[in-house]
């Protein structure tokens, strides 16, 4: 629905973009501030980056967060894809309503409730089975998989419904077994959705503070837990430096992802043109 954009809408767009980006730009600028007090300018400096790189606690937190994020993203993508397939392609099955409910609820559940309930689960499990012995890496990963898989399932579901079933039906008509149809046709076509799901699960995990704070144990600090414990006491220039690095990494990652997606789209368009030409 294109059309004329009125002055009011243009103003709102500009104001909205300023609202979103000015705080982040200031965050970056102040990371190069020599002064120890964040909003007071003391000249350009890289000293807070130095402080940051020398901090072992920061490196440990980064390592733990990345480890959790990668494992979480992988498992969440597998489970979320299975769940999406079940919801879209399997028609009616026993308990579908409950399953659908459990898939949507984590998306809107307040984090404090999810975190609290997972913690009491882990404690009950430990009482009953002696597992998990310590809270930390394992419990945070399980918690993250649980909410991440719901996000992956949403992406997979919308991609599956958008794909249609004609290719699958054709393969079945030509005598392919259902399992082969799944592995040779559905899965490859789902791949971009799975990549998107993996990336989303990865960032969700890196971003989570509340749920991780509930289910972690002593000593296991993820990056958000570390950042939170520092900024709770006020502004810290080394956190500005950390924020700048995170923004830089995200910007590079997103640019690469956008470029790959753009190329894929172009390729797909070209393929479709060839198909249109060859098959009159």
């Amino acid at each position, binding site marked *: *629905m294109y059309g004329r954009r009125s002055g009011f809408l243009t103003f709102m767009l500009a104001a909205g973009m300023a609202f979103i980006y000015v705080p982040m730009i200031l965050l970056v600028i102040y990371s190069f501030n020599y002064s120890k007090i964040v909003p007071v300018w003391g000249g350009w400096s890289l000293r807070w980056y130095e402080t940051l790189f020398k901090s072992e606690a920061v490196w440990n937190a980064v390592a733990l967060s990345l480890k959790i994020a990668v494992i979480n993203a992988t498992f969440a993508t597998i489970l979320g894809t299975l769940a999406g397939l079940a919801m879209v392609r399997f028609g009616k099955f026993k308990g579908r309503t409950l399953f659908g409910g459990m898939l949507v609820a984590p998306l809107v559940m307040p984090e*404090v409730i999810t975190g609290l309930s997972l913690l009491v689960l882990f404690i009950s499990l430990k009482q009953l089975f002696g597992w998990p012995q310590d809270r930390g890496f394992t419990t945070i990963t399980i918690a993250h998989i649980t909410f991440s898989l719901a996000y992956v399932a949403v992406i997979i579901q919308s991609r599956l419904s958008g794909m249609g079933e004609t290719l699958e039906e054709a393969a079945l008509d030509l005598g392919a077994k259902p399992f082969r149809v799944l592995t040779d046709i559905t899965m490859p076509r789902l791949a971009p959705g799975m990549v998107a799901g993996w990336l989303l699960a990865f960032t969700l995990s890196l971003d989570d503070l509340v749920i991780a704070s509930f289910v972690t144990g002593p000593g296991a600090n993820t990056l958000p837990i570390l950042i939170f414990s520092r900024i709770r006491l006020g502004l810290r220039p080394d956190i500005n430096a950390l924020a700048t690095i995170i923004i830089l990494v995200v910007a590079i990652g997103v640019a690469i992802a956008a470029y790959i997606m753009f190329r894929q789209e172009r390729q797909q368009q070209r393929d479709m043109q060839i198909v249109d030409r060859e098959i009159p």
Partner: protein
Amino acid sequence: MTETSALAVVDPAPPRLGAVSQLARRMQAGWRSIVIFIPYVWLFVFFLLPFFIVAKISVAELKMASPPYTDLIKWAEDGIMTIRITFENFTYIFEDDLYSKTYINSLKISSISTILCLLIGYPIAYGIIRSGPVARRLLLFAIILPFWTSFLLRVYAWMGLLADRGTINNVLIWLGLIDEPIRMLYSEFAVYIGIVYTYLPFMILPLYANMEKLDATLNEVAADLGSRPMNTFFKVTLPLTMPGIIAGSLLVFIPATGEYVIPDLLGGGNVLMIGRLLFNEFNQNVDWPTASAVAIVLLFLLVLPMTIYQYYQGKAMEDQ
């Protein structure tokens, strides 16, 4: 045991091939159940089951032990089972002024934030829709981009802006508009800004998805028939974007009600919100039964909006 092994020796060629293909056939039928079974069990154990445990603790009593609550079921020595359930935690929440005030304040803050997000997000989403194809993609990209950076650091950015010696106060003093810094950080105002700032994309994206499907010819027809733009907006566009408005509003309202980080960092101790109270009750006071009861009540408050959201989500999926 010996019989079977003897039998296997006597009969050296069991129908192996038949068994394998039979197994394969059974797996063909079975893989569907496996696909459903694995995520089903995962969600059941790690999502649904925990709520029952929270419900259980909410009717238990506080005990100075680890874990700090009493068992509901006790087995006496003669095998008699006694069940102890108490609703004291709930009556405590309803009688204590602090809790009811906090619930009401949370709902107030999340409602007003949702309306603010809608008022700001709607024109932005509409503006994106009304842009050319290239600008549209870039703008949408710019809205999604902050999603991929840290939520915590976006809240932190506002601490630097709103502090007594923060950027906004510095600029205002430099301009000569004020002499003394205005206290903005650690107030309800700061919490509103924080929620609107971080949740705005959640409002814009469902609105955009909904508006994308609108037919521009409807507006043209209305204009041809002599409807003024304002009139067309309220009579045609607004009603048609209602599903987007509802989805976006719920996506802001529900998580904002239970928000912990924003009231903690931007509100400090001055703003009562239930997420923060719950977190502190659990971690600092170690009063698990009360915290569980607080969580159950919060869940009850949000069950209706969550069900509505689920309904719309399901409908949107089927429409595709």
